[in-house]
């Protein structure tokens, strides 16, 4: 009876395949990181013409050195953005956990490694508080992490002032375990005319790990689902809450890693009040193609975004411009990235399936 009729005119319209070249282009544009890749290439080309020193070994080393901590934070924030959440507290977690490490070593006489482990626990606690608050209250994570940011920022300033009398804690060099910590978090390698730091390796590891997690594991699919269709994801049994909390733990751990890299490099920590660093991670992730609305983005893109940032910063400095132009330039990049992402997304939506 009725079954014959829809079958007769149902599928017929859908047989003609799209041209192969067109599909390749669509697939390429569907990659969230493609915009950031074009960004790196165009910004790199622009500044390479302005300041040829940019592409020397020394220039590249400096660029990668600037990009590494940003990239580590950027990939963690990218995962969180894809899941539809936001984290403002990652930079302040970096500062306050390195302050905890420094105080534990200098004031309590703890070895470097136990101190690092304890501050990692502190970081994960902060992440857990952020994540649990967000999933239990349903408050926007922007506000929750803004509160965490303020608490930690004020707390670290007050704590370092109360204990050491200044906003700077130093004198870690020579503590037990310091040498091995420097090997893991602070060693450098001379390659050509540039000194490359080990933070580059950490950054590459973080990017590789998060990329694998995002595209090739069930966890990654849960991240995409949590951001792209939260209600559907919950109804299909995706552990949205667990995923969200884990991602906040991830950004907190990334914050700890950034803090530790800085601490080991400087042999101390300087607490200064600034919101700038918090925004930078998000800017980097958005330049990398992440949508603030969630459900779309890539960690490779965030790393490329960090590279765009670093190239522009070092390029402006090498070209002899007033470094104050950098922020304006970054804002412009962000705007271009937002517009480009919008175009790509509309195109994705509009692709006719025939």
């Amino acid at each position: 009876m009725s079954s014959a009729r829809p079958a007769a005119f149902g599928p017929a319209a859908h047989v003609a395949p799209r041209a192969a070249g067109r599909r390749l282009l669509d697939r390429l544009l569907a990659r969230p990181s493609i915009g950031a890749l074009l960004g790196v290439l165009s910004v790199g080309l622009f500044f390479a013409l302005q300041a040829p020193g940019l592409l020397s070994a020394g220039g590249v080393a400096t660029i990668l050195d600037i990009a590494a901590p940003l990239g580590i934070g950027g990939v963690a924030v990218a995962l969180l953005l894809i899941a539809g959440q936001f984290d403002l507290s990652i930079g302040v977690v970096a500062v306050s956990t390195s302050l905890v490490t420094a105080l534990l070593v200098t004031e309590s006489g703890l070895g470097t490694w136990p101190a690092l482990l304890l501050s990692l626990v502190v970081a994960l606690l902060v992440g857990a508080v952020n994540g649990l608050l967000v999933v239990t209250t349903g408050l926007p994570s922007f506000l929750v992490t803004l509160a965490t940011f303020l608490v930690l920022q004020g707390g670290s300033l007050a704590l370092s002032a109360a204990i050491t009398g200044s906003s700077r804690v130093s004198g870690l060099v020579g503590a037990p375990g310091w040498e091995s910590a420097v090997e893991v978090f602070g060693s450098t390698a001379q390659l050509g005319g540039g000194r490359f730091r080990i933070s580059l390796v950490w950054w590459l590891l973080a990017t590789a790990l998060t990329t694998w997690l995002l595209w090739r594991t069930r966890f990654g699919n849960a991240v995409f689902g949590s951001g792209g269709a939260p209600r559907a994801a919950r109804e299909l049994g995706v552990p949205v809450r667990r995923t969200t909390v884990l991602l906040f733990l991830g950004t907190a751990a990334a914050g700890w890693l950034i803090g530790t890299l800085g601490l080991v490099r400087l042999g101390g920590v300087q607490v200064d009040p600034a919101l700038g660093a918090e925004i930078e991670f998000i800017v980097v992730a958005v330049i990398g193609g992440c949508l603030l609305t969630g459900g779309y983005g890539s960690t490779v893109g965030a790393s490329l975004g960090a590279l765009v940032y670093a190239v522009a910063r070092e390029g402006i400095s090498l070209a002899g411009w007033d470094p104050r132009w950098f922020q304006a330039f970054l804002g412009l990049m962000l705007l271009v990235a937002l517009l480009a992402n919008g175009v790509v997304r509309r195109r994705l939506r509009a692709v006719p399936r025939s």
Partner: protein
Amino acid sequence: MSTATATTEDGRTPPVLELRGVTVRFGSVPALSRVSLALRAGEVTCVLGENGSGKSSLVAVVSGLLRPVEGELRLDDRPVRFRSPQQARSRGIATVWQDLAIAPLMSVWRNFFLGAEPTRGQWPFRRLDVGRAEEIAAQAMARVGVPGLDPAQPASALQAGERQCLAIARALHFGARVLVVDEPTAPMTIAQRALVLQSVVTARDSGLAVLFVTHNPQYAHLVGDRFLLLGGGRVAGDLTRADVDVDDLTRLVAGGDELTRLGESLRAAHPDR
């Protein structure tokens, strides 16, 4: 209501899911009053009615979003109370919401397997089996009438009917027993509607009990075995395919509309009665 009991006496298969005298209220306003309905395996039950007739409330009750204040749901002849859509889902009731179950920027296969992805390898290296997932998703989509689909393309590239098919294919693949399809109110082309109808037929032929909610009697009559007419939250008619042809059904659905208007004007003319 009476037909539901009559058909069981006919010696037909017992219903998979049954609603008995279900009443739902929003505040003091009844959205459904004593609605009874039996869904059987391999049968399409169409729910017809105008906007505000209680179609959405009925879907919400069956899929576990709303709990009835009176009456009961019986699954395999045992009373059940669903506390959440997840629970209804785990008991084999898959709901295809109007357009909600798709993450538009995720690929087709990621949407298809969301929450139940196939993996391979041992734990620290356990990873998605992308090749198998793409293959299964493409096969499942072909089964419901969308062949030749690239499972790696974003779901946003699918048209409205194809998105519904994706959700229906998912329900079929993961072994649902009851399929609730809430037809989108958004305009669809005839080909797209036909696609949805065809996947509904596929689901029926696979032995699912289908509840198909629509406002279009022509489309309903193409696939429906039983027709439940809703009006003002009440069952205005419970008919089988043998009872009506397309014209009768169209007249009934449209006639319900006219009768409501007539009733309203009569009440306005004689407020004391």
